[in-house]
Each structure stands twice: as structure tokens, then as C-alpha cells.
């Protein structure tokens, strides 16, 4: 595999030759003004001087993808792993360790983190911003903790909203499609005077339930969400300005859990379905002031206040208020371009859980985190060699002081190519939920032969339960990356990189004890703990075993990978974009059986390949036809509920097969301001499964082919 990956860029090199713009040089200004630009636009795409594996998704890419959710848009970037769980839930990560609660990725919208403090990840069920209001998305793979904060372990997704200046006017976008798909977005923008401008937008989305995998029943995942966004910008002159963002979002989605064990005294067990309704809300207000000092220091101070809530049926209700202040300074002097910053975040939560299903240690907690960083981009050789070096210190209530470091070397042998080397160390501070939550993790059946000959044995249910650990520490990652980027010609560029990242102190688990709910287990050397069993609602003398684990930092592993992105403007009106990522996770061997099982589960749930090929074709000035072919390798997920006694209590895996699917879009512009588009998504690899949820036993749903019609009206 490695061999073949290195061959490709070599092949590209062999055919590439820089095309000189001889003809353009002879043009006069008058000719240039009249020249038609027919090419498929890609603004802000250039990354020649970025010493990292980076990818930019533009507003046009988003529109032409036909996608209606942020995770679906992110599928086009190499190294980003996206797996849909149901109508609203997604597992999204960069460079491995994917999961519904993936926690090694930092996602920012205009500098505000979408971090869910319970599990240090993003809940994609709620739309932080309508897709239509995004100017571009920058994705930087690899550790970026120094500049972006301690959770940017594997990467950063930086979402930049449309600016308001020079963008007066409004737009209405309406989508209707199969599976009850409805999406309405409206935006209005204006300028209150020469220096002030604003935008107000709102979006509502709806989807009817999807199909349960392998059954003719629906997955109860009816989805509705809404978001209102406001942005105001005021130019104060002399390099200073002031901006305010306000947003409020809601989402509602039900899910089906095949989990509510009821036990019979003879050891039988039945699972009753539950359909908890999940509601989320988020309100955020952000203000930012930027100014320029006489000494030439560019400063920015941003303050945020936010409130969010998450309610899952009557199982858990979480609410938190967050305050965040962030200062950044920048000064370019001589060969140095210095950036420094100071940030403080305080989160106060209020959590209610339905014991014994879920329990939390401490219903109210305040977590504080203070960070300081310094980074320098140092031009060692003008035009040729640039060194980037930075460090960060964070002090968090839970995990003490953490150090992040980052060093990059960028070499640009010519205007058309650049190579970079990156070394970085990034910690991940443990999240509130990881430390303080106790929860069921699954169930299996243990076959026990009868001691009396002729009498049939029993299948004893073993219930997995993970208990809280207030001392859970930070995870650490150390990475190395080598990349090369080349502009072969004005219409062809490629980007290739390899990386290796070593993780230590990863969150795993270990067994604390095993106990039974029947006195007979004493005969097998297993304690009979009636008090604990009563807590779980089990009457005395039920033949059920509990395996109680606790979270600890006992895992380590290494990821290796290679990524490729090619951008080729075949003809002025036809662009092809290819991205491909290969990765492999090798977890260390563990002696602890629980850790060993967790390590194996992590390895087996990591797909090796992700690929995407997009074609954007402007048939003529008014018509566009776009094709998106994308796919992923298969993976395996642990069966949380394993009622097959044949497995003898061992971990069972379900395979999620790989897939290649196809999206199509045909758009027609009618007049100057109206565009109609027909979008077909997931047209092949029909009714596939992309992921099986972890921690929460959500029923497995299918991703079905869909069609939608979109009307976009600008005024």
C-alpha cells in the first residue's frame, strides 16, 4: 500500500510542466477588463505557504455538493472521516479515532469553539450556522494545539462565516425532497451606514424517520432543527473594528434504543425498546474588538457568553453556561511574524441523570481553563525557508498544567512547489463526562454448564457498567508529518503528505470488580452484592453478573497515514477534485483484558481508506452539472448487546461494510437571481449502514438514496 501511494505523486511529477502565461502578458489593461472569466471559481484556495496539511472548502463547493449538513460537506476533504449514524447523528473525526463522541478534533465557527464540554466533541445534531452563510471552511489536519487550543489533537476545522460588508440584500433557499426532507433558509443583510453592516439569517430543517437496518420498521429518528444567526460588523477606522455575533439553535430527534433489560428469575433476559426524545438548545453571544497600536501590534479581544442544554428522554439532562475571553496579538517585525494569546474559559454545568442507567458524580461543577501561547514564523532564508515554532501552556481545573509544542519547517524551492516538515505535541484534557459519568456499557451472555449431570446449564447475563474516575488524566499525542505541494500548471495542483502520530495515556478502562445478584455465585468465587443489585433495580437472588469497570488512561497506539488532494481545471468550465486518505491504527499490546478489548475495538473500527472524486461542470453560463463519487473502507464495531451465548461472553463484532456512493446535481439558472437545482444523493450503495453507535445503543439505521429540489432566490 505504501509503495503505491508514493508512486502516484511521482507519476504526476513526470507529466507536469509549468505552463507559461505568454499570451496573457501581451494583453493590455483594456483587454483584461473585457476578458471573460469562465472558470469554475476557487477563491482563497491557495495554500502554497501553509506548513501543514490543509484543505479549503469554498461556499461554491458547499453549494455544488448538494449536501445539507455540515458533516456531509466535510466528506470532500482528505483525512476527514465522516460516518452517518442516523438522520441527525454523525461520527466525525480527522485522522482516526472516530466515534459518535469523537474527541480529538477542534471545530471553530468564527473563532468560537463548538466543543461540547461533556465529552469534548461536537454534537452534529445541532446546526451551528446555516450552510448558506458559510464563506469557507479551512481544515488543517494534524496537531494544532498551540494556536487552536488543547483539543486540536488530530486537526482543526475552521468555519468562517460570510462577511457582512458589501453584502447587502437577501436570499431565500427552499429545498423539498424525499423522506420528508424540507429545508428553508432566509437571509437578509444591510448597511446601517457607511461603516456598519449586518446580516440576519434563519434556517429550519426537517427529515422523516429513516429505515431500521434489516427490518421493515422505521428508526424513530424524525429530525427537526432550527437556527437563527445574526452578525454585525462596524469599522472604527485606523485598523480597528467591532463585531457581534448572536445565534440561537434548537434541534429535536428521537432515537430507538434496544436496551432496557428485564430479567426473569431463571436467568432469561428480554430487551424492551425505548424511544427517548433528544432535544438540544444553544444560545451564544460573542463580541470582538480589534485594534492596532501605534507600535504596530494587531490585537483582538473576543468575549463569549453561551448557554446550552441537552436532554435525552428522562435519562439525562445537561445544561451549562460558558464564559470565554480570548486575547490575541500579532506583530510582524523583520524576519519574524509573532503571534501570542491568552485565553480563559469557565463552564458551569447542571446535570440531572436517571439512575441507575446513567449517574453523574457532582450535579454542579465549574471547570476553568486558562491558556497562554506564543508562536513565531521566522523567515530563515527569504523566499526559501521558513521556520515556525510555538508553545502553549494550559492550566485546567481537572488535569493540571499541560504543555503543547509545535515546530514546522517550510521549504519553497520555487514559486510552484513547497515542502514542509512538522513536529508537534498536543494534549487532550479529559472531559467532564469521561471523568464523572457512570453508565451501562453493554451486555453479553455467559454460558454456565450445570454442575448436576443431565440438568441443562444456564446462560448468565453479564452486564457491563463503567464507573466514574475523577482522576482521569489528559491524553497525549506526538506527531510527525512530511508534506509536499506542487502547482504543476496554472490549472493543476496536487498536495500529498505522510504522517505518524503516537498517542499515550489514551482513555481506556480496567475492571474494578465482578459481582453477582444471586448467592450461588459465591460458589464460583464471585461476590454476592445485594446492595449493588438493588441499586440497579434487581430483586434479590436474580442470576445476573455485573462487570464493573472504570475509565483509566491505560491505552497507547500509533497512527500512520498518507493523504492526497488533486485539483485539476481540465477545461475552463470543468474542474475535477480528488482526495484520498489512507490510515492505519496500531494499538499497543495490553496485558489488562479490558484494555486489550478496548484497544482491539479501536483498531477494528478504523477504516483504512477514504476517497472522494468531484466533478464540477459548467455546461454553459446558466447550467451546471456536478458529480460526486465517494467511498470509504469498511469497519467493525463492538456489539454492545451480545445475546449470543455461543460467543461465551467474549466481545462480538458487527461488520460495517465499505461503500462507494454517488451524488448528482443539476442546476439551472433562470434569469439573474433564481437558481433551480435537482440533487440526488447516495444513489448507489443503497440502504447501507455507515456506523454503529457507541456508548448509547441507538438502533442501526440505513442511509437511503434521496432526491431533492432546491430553489435559490437572491434579491
Amino acid at each position: 500500500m505504501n509503495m503505491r501511494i508514493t508512486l502516484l505523486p511521482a507519476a504526476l511529477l513526470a507529466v507536469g510542466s509549468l505552463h507559461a502565461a505568454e499570451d496573457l502578458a501581451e494583453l493590455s489593461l483594456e483587454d483584461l477588463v473585457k476578458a471573460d472569466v469562465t472558470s469554475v471559481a476557487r477563491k482563497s484556495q491557495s495554500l502554497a505557504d501553509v506548513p501543514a496539511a490543509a484543505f479549503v472548502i469554498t461556499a461554491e463547493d458547499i453549494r455544488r455538493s448538494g449536501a445539507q449538513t455540515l458533516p456531509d460537506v466535510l466528506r470532500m476533504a482528505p483525512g476527514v472521516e465522516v460516518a452517518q449514524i442516523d438522520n441527525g447523528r454523525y461520527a466525525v473525526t480527522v485522522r482516526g479515532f472516530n466515534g459518535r463522541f469523537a474527541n480529538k478534533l477542534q471545530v471553530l465557527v468564527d473563532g468560537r469553539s463548538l466543543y461540547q464540554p461533556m465529552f469534548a466533541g461536537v454534537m452534529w445534531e445541532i446546526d451551528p450556522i446555516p450552510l448558506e452563510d458559510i464563506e469557507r471552511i479551512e481544515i488543517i489536519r494534524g496537531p494544532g494545539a498551540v494556536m487552536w487550543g488543547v483539543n486540536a489533537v488530530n486537526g482543526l476545522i475552521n468555519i468562517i462565516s460570510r462577511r457582512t460588508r458589501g453584502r447587502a440584500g437577501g436570499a431565500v433557499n427552499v429545498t423539498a425532497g424525499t423522506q420528508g426532507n424540507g429545508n428553508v433558509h432566509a437571509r437578509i443583510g444591510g448597511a446601517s451606514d457607511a461603516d456598519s453592516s449586518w446580516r440576519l439569517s434563519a434556517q429550519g430543517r426537517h427529515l422523516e424517520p429513516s429505515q431500521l437496518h434489516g427490518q421493515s420498521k422505521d428508526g424513530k429518528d424524525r429530525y427537526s432543527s432550527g437556527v437563527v444567526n445574526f452578525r454585525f460588523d462596524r469599522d472604527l477606522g485606523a485598523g480597528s473594528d467591532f463585531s457581534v455575533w448572536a445565534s440561537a439553535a434548537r434541534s429535536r430527534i428521537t432515537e430507538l434504543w434496544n436496551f432496557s433489560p428485564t430479567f426473569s428469575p431463571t436467568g432469561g433476559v428480554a430487551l424492551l425498546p425505548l424511544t427517548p426524545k433528544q432535544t438540544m438548545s444553544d444560545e451564544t453571544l460573542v463580541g470582538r474588538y480589534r485594534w492596532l497600536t501605534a507600535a504596530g501590534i494587531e490585537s483582538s479581544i473576543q468575549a463569549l457568553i453561551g448557554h446550552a442544554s441537552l436532554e435525552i428522554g428522562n435519562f439525562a439532562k445537561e445544561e451549562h453556561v460558558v464564559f470565554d475571553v480570548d486575547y490575541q496579538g500579532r506583530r510582524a517585525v523583520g524576519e519574524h511574524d509573532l503571534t501570542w494569546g491568552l485565553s480563559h474559559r469557565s463552564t458551569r454545568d447542571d446535570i440531572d441523570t436517571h439512575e441507575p442507567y446513567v449517574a453523574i458524580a457532582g450535579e454542579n461543577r465549574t471547570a476553568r481553563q486558562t491558556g497562554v501561547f506564543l508562536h513565531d514564523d521566522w523567515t530563515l532564508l527569504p523566499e526559501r525557508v521558513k521556520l515556525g515554532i510555538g508553545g502553549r501552556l494550559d492550566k485546567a481545573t481537572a488535569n493540571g498544567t499541560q504543555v503543547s509544542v509545535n515546530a514546522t519547517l517550510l521549504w519553497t524551492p520555487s514559486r510552484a512547489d513547497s515542502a514542509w516538515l512538522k513536529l508537534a505535541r498536543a494534549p487532550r484534557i479529559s472531559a467532564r463526562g469521561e471523568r464523572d459519568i457512570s453508565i451501562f456499557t453493554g451486555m453479553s451472555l455467559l454460558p454456565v454448564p450445570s454442575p448436576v449431570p443431565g440438568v441443562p446449564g444456564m446462560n448468565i447475563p453479564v452486564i457491563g457498567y463503567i464507573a466514574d474516575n475523577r482522576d482521569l488524566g489528559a491524553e497525549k499525542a506526538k506527531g510527525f508529518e512530511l508534506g509536499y505541494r506542487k502547482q504543476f500548471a496554472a490549472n493543476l495542483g496536487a498536495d500529498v503528505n505522510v504522517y505518524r502520530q503516537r498517542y499515550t495515556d489514551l482513555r481506556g478502562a480496567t475492571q474494578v470488580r465482578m459481582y453477582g445478584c444471586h448467592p450461588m455465585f459465591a460458589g464460583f468465587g464471585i461476590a454476592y452484592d445485594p446492595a449493588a443489585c438493588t441499586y440497579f433495580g434487581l430483586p434479590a437472588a436474580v442470576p445476573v453478573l455485573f462487570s464493573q469497570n472504570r475509565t483509566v488512561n491505560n491505552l497507547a497506539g500509533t497512527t500512520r497515514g498518507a493523504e492526497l488532494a488533486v485539483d485539476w481545471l481540465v477545461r475552463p468550465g470543468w474542474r475535477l477534485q480528488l482526495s484520498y486518505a489512507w490510515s492505519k491504527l496500531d494499538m499497543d499490546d495490553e496485558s489488562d483484558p479490558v484494555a486489550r478489548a478496548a484497544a482491539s475495538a479501536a483498531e477494528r473500527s478504523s477504516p483504512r481508506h477514504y476517497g472522494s472524486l468531484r466533478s464540477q461542470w459548467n455546461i454553459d453560463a446558466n447550467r451546471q452539472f456536478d458529480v460526486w463519487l465517494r467511498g470509504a473502507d469498511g469497519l467493525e464495531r463492538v456489539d454492545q448487546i451480545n445475546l449470543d451465548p455461543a460467543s461465551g461472553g467474549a466481545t462480538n463484532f458487527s461488520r460495517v461494510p465499505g461503500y462507494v456512493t454517488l451524488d448528482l446535481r443539476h442546476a439551472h439558472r433562470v434569469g439573474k437571481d433564481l437558481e433551480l437545482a435537482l440533487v440526488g444523493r447516495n444513489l448507489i450503495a443503497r440502504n447501507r449502514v455507515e456506523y454503529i453507535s457507541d456508548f448509547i445503543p441507538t438502533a442501526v439505521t440505513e442511509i437511503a438514496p434521496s432526491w431533492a429540489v432546491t430553489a435559490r432566490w437572491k434579491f
Partner: protein
Amino acid sequence: MYSPRFPRLAVWAVLAGLTLAMPASFGQATTEAQLKAAYLVNFLKYVEWPAQHPVFTICLLGRDSLGASLASYEGRQVGGRELRVRRVGSPEQLADCHELFISDTEEARFGALLRWVENQPILTISDAEVFTRDGGAIALIRSEGRLQFDVNAAALARAGLKPSSQMMRLARQVIGGSR
């Protein structure tokens, strides 16, 4: 369930096909970056700098979106003067720049960056539409299928630069003074 094994071969076949198809199509498309580069070179002929210098230097700041397109002009003669292109990152590096192109990704820093060139004979250009309103001299704008430009006459005057009347006439919009 439909369950294809990830068709690794198919992906590599597509890659190989792409690679093979490339040479045939070279040089057919003119990209927006090439047009912008041509504008930068052309402006040198339509603006008069206060002091003569044997070389013209175009300086690039921010995300380097035009470097590759400008490479083919480097070392060539423009108005009898040799053309050089350079990347810059701090005010100290601007000394002999005639033009400073600021990428639109630096929009948030326009105020600060324009301070660097204050009272220097440097023609500032960006591909962000708001640039001229922020005090920059020329903004390249994609509008109605063409790449056009706006001029801030006051910014040119402050820098001590004299634009030709033809350039002012071709501009889409002139602010801070009459054409």
C-alpha cells in the same frame, strides 16, 4: 444487504486514468489567478512612481495565491525594467516594493497592513472587494463573469502615485476623487 468490499483497484484505476489524461489538457484553461497576475503586471505600465528604479518589484503578502502564476513573468522586461516578485511578511521587508498584493484571506488585517505602507510609494492591490473602501488603492473584483477593478484615487494620491487617465477610465468604480 448490499456490501461491496472497498474497490481499491477501481480507485487506483481512476487515479491512473486521471494522471494519463493530464498532458493532453495542459494550457487550455486560463484561471482567475493567471488573470490577476496579468493585472498586476499591467498596472506597472499604467501607474507612474515618483522615483525611477531599474527593477520593478511586486510583493506578495498573505496566502500566496498568485506566486505560481507570476513566476512566468519573473525576470522579464516591463516598460524597460526588469520584473521581480517577492513574498513579504513584515513592514521591514517592504522597502523596494512597487506593488503590494494582499490576498483576500488577510481581509481582517487590511487596516494593519495598510499602516505598513503609509506614506510610501507602494501600489496596494487585493482581490477582496472591500479593499478600496478600507483605504487600499486597487481591488480586483469578479463581477458578471469578468475580472474588473475598483480604484481608490485618494489612496493613490497619498502614496504619491500617478495613475494614467486610461486606467481610471477602465476602472469599474473610482472612489475618493473624480476620474
